[in-house]
């Protein structure tokens, strides 16, 4: 009986183990900002998905292009139809890894700076990217805030600009997610 219980516990632990150390959200916020003398453009989505593996430092974000909201409806139309071609390329994705993982103590609440190296896919183009991120381990250690600010060059992702250059060639991107420990299925 004891042996059966032991095997059962091991099995349970191995199932739980699959998700242990992983945190995720489906409501991360991504904002981008472009400013030129002609026009100021800003858009936000609150429905990006994100996952962080505390053990390996792997981190990923993905967002649907059509979930971005602009102040002006016309800008939103142009963004989807002319620039991002969101019907052909519906998603943007970042996959990377925290480089200096030992500098982040996930068992100690506090704020940590990290460098994340990975690849960013936008408009069907995937490019390597290294970004600085801020990681905040909350008091309960089951919730972690991740934020990052970086620039994206339009030409790297084959996104055409207008002849009058009403969009900045470097777009400011801000990513914010409050990730919660995954409960294993």
């Amino acid at each position, binding site marked *: 009986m004891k042996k059966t219980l032991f095997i059962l516990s091991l099995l349970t632990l191995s199932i739980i183990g699959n*998700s242990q150390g*992983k945190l*995720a959200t*489906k*409501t991360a916020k991504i904002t981008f900002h472009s400013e030129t003398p002609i026009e100021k453009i800003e858009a936000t989505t*609150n*429905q990006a*998905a994100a*996952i962080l593996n505390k053990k390996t430092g792997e981190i*990923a974000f*993905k967002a*649907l*292009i*059509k*979930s971005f*909201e602009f102040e*002006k*409806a*016309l800008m*939103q139309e142009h963004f989807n139809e002319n620039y991002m071609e969101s*019907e052909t390329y*519906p*998603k943007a994705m970042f*996959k990377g890894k925290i480089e200096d993982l030992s500098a982040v103590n996930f068992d100690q609440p506090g704020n940590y700076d990290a460098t994340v190296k990975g690849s960013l896919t936008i408009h069907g183009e995937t490019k390597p990217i290294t970004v600085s991120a801020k990681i905040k381990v909350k008091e309960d250690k089951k919730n972690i805030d991740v934020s990052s600010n970086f620039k994206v060059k339009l030409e790297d992702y084959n996104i055409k600009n207008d002849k009058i250059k009403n969009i900045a060639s470097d777009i400011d991107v801000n990513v914010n997610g409050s990730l919660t420990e*995954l409960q294993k299925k």
Partner: protein
Amino acid sequence: MRKVLPFIIVLILAVAAYGWFFVYNKPHKDIAKSKTDFTFLATELSLKFETEAKKTNSKLNEKVLSIEGTIHSISNQDTLCFITLKGSKNYVISSELTKDECTSLRKLKTGDRVKLKGLYVGYFEADEDFEMIGDIKLKKTTISK
């Protein structure tokens, strides 16, 4: 004629500028007041994605959907509110509600039956990397019942 021409040019420019101002500042579509394009049960819509996701996605592109289903989870962050409906084995339906609906959301709980009306924005397939099941996404969503 020479005296009239400048006035005509100024008038044309003024009309063009006036027209452009309205195009440039045209308002966003009010989803709550828009005609519903398709009505589904949450389980029925999820099953459509299970069998033919790409085709269903094209059909629903930028359409206003009315979806009735059982609440799987709720997230209320003051002015940012989300509701997820139970779907099928591999899909759920996630909606970002309009700010005004955050108050209505307080009266609801997991397991309640609701009808949502929102704009379809796309879907995520089930993703092992993200440890997430498939997600059918709506925005500007209101609760109809």
